[in-house]
């Protein structure tokens, strides 16, 4: 029975690594958002949060289950709360804020005439929609950057 107090406590690495991985799940979003595969659904970030959460959980089980062997009851709990807050913020942004788009009920619909316009191009030359339509029509993209 290893019930003696061990003066050389072991490093409770899952707490540290798990916290680092979970925080990486938040801050790696600008990187993964550059690629449609990881932006359309942020599975890479969610995977990092999941791995971080599992490690943090394992570290807490160690810290509370065998406190004589592993540190981390207090800082592990703080890590877990911070990681949860990071995940909550991420989930709120991705699954709520990103979906708050206007109704655009008056936007042109299929079969309607596209409203005419004339706008300057990058050289300051004025271009009309009609100038762009022959002979094959045009894809009109309202691009706003990554916001």
């Amino acid at each position, binding site marked *: 029975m290893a019930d003696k107090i061990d003066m050389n406590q072991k490093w409770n690495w899952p707490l540290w690594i798990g916290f680092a991985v979970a925080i990486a799940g938040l801050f790696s979003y600008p990187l993964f*958002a550059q690629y*449609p595969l990881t*932006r*359309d659904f*942020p599975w890479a970030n969610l995977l990092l949060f999941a791995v971080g959460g599992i490690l943090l959980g394992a570290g807490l089980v160690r810290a509370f289950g065998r406190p004589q062997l592993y540190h981390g009851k207090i800082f592990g709990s703080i890590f877990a709360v911070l990681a949860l807050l990071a995940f909550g913020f991420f989930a709120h942004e*991705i699954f709520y804020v*990103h*979906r708050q*788009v*206007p109704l*655009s*009920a*008056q*936007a*042109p*619909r*299929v*079969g*309607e*005439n*596209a*409203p*005419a*316009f004339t*706008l*300057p*191009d*990058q050289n300051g030359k004025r*271009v009309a*929609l*009609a100038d*762009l*339509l*022959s*002979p*094959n*029509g*045009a*894809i*009109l*993209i*309202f*691009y*706003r*950057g990554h*916001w």
Partner: protein
Amino acid sequence: MGFNYRFLSDENAEVIRRYDLLHPGAGPRHTDIARPAEFYIDSGGIVQWVNLTGNIAVRARPEEALRVIDALKQ
């Protein structure tokens, strides 16, 4: 079939408003910008495809637009 790109600037969001695509306060420092939107307009000026995403992070991919155009041309 080649593609040409033209970049047009809608500095005062006039066309964005005309197309009902304004997303108030969603830009940097809460400026008004367009919601992401894509249209295919045929040579007669008729809208043939509209993509109004429900999630600003999810936008039409080039392959999707090409598929739409191919389907319409058949």
